[in-house]
């Protein structure tokens, strides 16, 4: 994975795992790699890897079971919410871009509806 070194790396890895949960690459209830393995997998500092799991846990997207490891949440409702959150983020980024081009929201909506 290629990182943007100007943005926090934990945030980027977290985003990648969130996407993998929404797309089903990582199934609900699936076991995630241990902290050290995650660090080695992405080539990141172990403290950064630990932060990724702390934040995923805080967001209710994974849970750590003592002595067993970290698992993707089994809560389907939460995964549906995440899908909406990620879609909102994507729309927000799109709006910033469209706005910078001087295109209005209405024009943009029209363009989207005309797209195949």
């Amino acid at each position, binding site marked *: 994975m290629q*990182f943007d*070194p*100007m*943005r*926090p*790396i*934990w945030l980027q890895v977290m985003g990648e795992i969130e996407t993998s949960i929404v797309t089903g690459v990582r199934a609900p209830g699936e076991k995630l790699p241990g902290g*050290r393995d995650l*660090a*080695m997998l*992405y*080539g*990141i*500092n*172990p*403290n*950064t890897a630990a*932060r990724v799991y702390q934040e995923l846990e805080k967001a209710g997207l994974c849970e750590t079971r003592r002595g067993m490891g970290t698992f993707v949440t089994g809560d389907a409702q939460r995964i549906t919410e995440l899908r909406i959150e990620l879609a909102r983020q994507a729309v927000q980024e799109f709006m910033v871009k469209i706005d910078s081009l001087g295109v209005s929201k209405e024009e943009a909506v029209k363009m989207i509806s005309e797209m195949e």
Partner: protein
Amino acid sequence: MLESRELTKSFGSVVAVDHVSLKLEAGHVYAMLGPNGSGKTTWMKMAAGLIKPTSGQILYEERPVGVESRRHIAYMSTEPYFYNWMTIRDVGRYYEDFFEDFSMERYKELIGRMELREDMKTRTLSSGMMAKLKIAVTLARDAKVYMLDEPFNGIDLLARDEIRTCILQFASEDKILLLSSHLVEEMEAVADRAIFIKQGHLEEIVDLETMRTEYGISMADRYRQIYGHEEVTSNV
């Protein structure tokens, strides 16, 4: 903890390390940065107990570094240090005799991962292979502090990924890792703290994720801010 207090080293009239005070804590990977001649290697050699400070102190777990600390501090210098008649197997045995904490099993595993073979003679190794061997032999020790001076130098892009993975494998809560490199980008994700040394002085020590969050800049950006002017003038 590895700590330097007002550490200074002069070679004649040249002050290589100038009153540097810093603390390295277990559980972190530090990137030590600065242009050539800024004093990184001299600092590391004093921490390894290989050269004596002119003034100031360097302490490991509250005690001055010396024979005792050398058992816990693994240091990889930039100079080559194997006899050229040695095979890679001989290098392992030599280290095994020298360091109590050297693990032959771990050495063999590292050699394999770096695509070296035990029967290779050190004199036939390319510079990249030699660089990998130096890393393998250093990481095969079960030390508390690993100091690697320019671990990515002379190593091609693909092998750098492997080395990064090996380094991360040995990073843990009770260990200190200190890496120096000119290849700043290689260390962005690996290190969590950066030490900037400028003309023998400690410029600053930063937490990288905090810096990214608060200022939206990378370690390489900060490097350019600190040394940009210096680099330009030294090239003239």
